[in-house]
């Protein structure tokens, strides 16, 4: 009997060593920290990553810590280092502006896995992963639909600063609008801030005055632009999270990020001992990006169909968004 027990223990130990993914099931939850620039319920960039982890929490025990509102990079850097010191298994720096800090901090904690985005650079570090959203794809789809529904022949974009997934989304939107209607006036206004809600509102009003009857925008400050569009009853396309509840009467559809798609891959790699050095991306094909339509918004015939056609074309590769 004693021999049998020893043999069984040896088999169990071997199994655990060969298959480390079984380890979390033994009781210790995975500790994940998110550091993000805006509020965790901003209906935009930060909420998208928090929703992603929460989706995974349904299947896996995760001890989640969030430090949000770190518009100041130095504050974010302090939080990243603090979580690493506390021994969190995965520290997610959710903001392309945090790259410089991560590059300095990650080498000091070789046993901790770091992930940051939206970006495509791991700095050659074995414990840093990067992730990106192919927001140009959703942007393209939105642009196609916006051009299809514009009666005045003008669409407007309110952007923050021309970087990261904001630039991808804006470029994709303009490309899609022009693909649908080569004569469309697609005007872009980068306001130079991720947080100036009042300026975003005025940028939206400037677009409307310039003849745009369909608007879109990206980043946290667009709540102001949505309010301005709402007051003038101008249609709005959202991105990053489902923005329908901000203005159900004008939001046509939203590009929604499903970060859980790549977070699952990152966690699976960690289970297999890979702490970084890889790049991940969400897109329409891997269902990391989905287009959520607002069913309450009555679309003109053909608009949704144009959007669905664009989605199918991007997925099968027959449509290129102009990126990469």
């Amino acid at each position: 009997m004693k021999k049998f027990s020893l043999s069984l223990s040896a088999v169990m130990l071997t199994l655990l060593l060969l298959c480390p993914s079984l380890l979390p099931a033994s009781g210790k939850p995975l500790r994940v920290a998110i550091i993000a620039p805006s509020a965790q319920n901003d209906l935009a960039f930060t909420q998208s990553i928090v929703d992603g982890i929460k989706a995974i929490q349904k299947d896996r025990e995760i001890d989640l810590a969030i430090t949000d509102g770190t518009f100041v990079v130095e504050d974010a850097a302090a939080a990243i280092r603090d979580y690493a010191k506390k021994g969190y298994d995965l520290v997610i720096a959710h903001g392309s502006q945090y790259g410089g800090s991560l590059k300095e901090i990650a080498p000091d904690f070789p046993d901790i896995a770091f992930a940051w985005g939206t970006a495509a650079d791991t700095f050659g570090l074995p414990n840093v992963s990067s992730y990106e959203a192919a927001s140009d794809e959703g942007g393209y789809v939105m642009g196609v639909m916006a051009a299809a529904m514009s009666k005045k022949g003008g669409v407007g974009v309110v952007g923050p600063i021309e970087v990261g997934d904001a630039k991808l989304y804006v470029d994709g939107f303009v490309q899609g609008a022009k693909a649908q209607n080569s004569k469309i006036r697609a005007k872009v206004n980068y306001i130079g801030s991720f947080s100036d809600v009042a300026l975003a509102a005025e940028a939206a009003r400037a677009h409307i005055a310039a003849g745009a009857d369909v608007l879109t925008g990206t980043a946290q400050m667009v709540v102001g632009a949505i309010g301005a569009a709402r007051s003038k009853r101008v249609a709005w396309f959202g991105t990053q999270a489902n923005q329908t509840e901000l203005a159900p009467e004008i939001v046509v559809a939203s590009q929604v990020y499903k970060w859980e798609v790549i977070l699952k891959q990152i966690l699976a790699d960690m289970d297999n001992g890979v702490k970084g050095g890889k790049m991940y991306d969400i897109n329409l094909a891997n269902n990391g990006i989905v287009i959520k339509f607002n069913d309450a918004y009555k679309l003109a015939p053909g608009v949704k169909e144009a959007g669905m056609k664009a989605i199918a074309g991007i997925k099968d590769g027959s449509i290129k968004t102009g990126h990469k």
Partner: protein
Amino acid sequence: MSDSFAVMIVVATIASGIRLATPFLLASLGEALGQRSGVLNLGVDGVMLLGAFGAYYTVLQTSNPYYGLLVGISIGLLIGLFYGFITLNLRAEQGVSGIGIYLFGLGMSDLFFQKFVGTPRPILPFMPLDIPVLSGLPVVGEMLFQHSIIVYIAFGLVPLMSFVLHRTTYGLNIRAIGENPEAADSLGVSVMATRYSAIIIGNGLAGLAGAALAIELGIFQQNLTNAMGFIAIALVYFGAWSPKGVMIGSLVFGMVQSIVLQCKTFGVIPRSASDLAAMAPAVITILALVIVAKRFKQPSALTKPYVRGG
């Protein structure tokens, strides 16, 4: 571009500049009043944030923007009372106390928002006020007379405050204690009471500025003011502590922001220069400050606590 379209764009640009200037004007009028009495308040932005959240939450609950304005002002008045106690009774250093108020407002407004609201939810904004005859005037009507009530309140306060400061005994007292509190005290003016009132009213206006911003935008989110309160303090120096000067400063700042936005919309400013252009209002304000600072003198007793016989 047709002539009528060009006129429409000019009208939209000026109207936008006026809207953008309004919160700055309200906050800087309040700060100017406090500084004229000799008290600096660097916490304007924090007061604005708390006023903004209070107003937003009130409108969310009641759907009445006017109740929101009242709550925003009330919050400002209360913080003014508190700030007065710290700086006048406890004689705390004004710069540090102001930063404390700012950090308090920044943190508490976000905490309250997370606790009581969570996800941003739109509220009923102010509708443009239809002023009989004037709002119907071609060009000028849309430019100047189709704004919400808060815009008229803000610009209406400019002559009112000028009158109070320059034509009333109370205004004379404020100016006197801001320049020479000992002399004012020797003539029987209560330095403490006058400064208290100026601080309370000034903070009330900062609360109103925050409330106006939240209600005008119809939303609240973390750090909604985006450091507007600090710009408002700079505009007080720009405006040489006079209501008219502060109004001009606010309008210049708002108009530059608006013009830059329009230029970006029409591609006059290329996208490659977009971020540089976004700095234009701040750069112009700093340049103006440099010029103005040489021509005007700040209130002599500014930031100096008053101790009778001290």
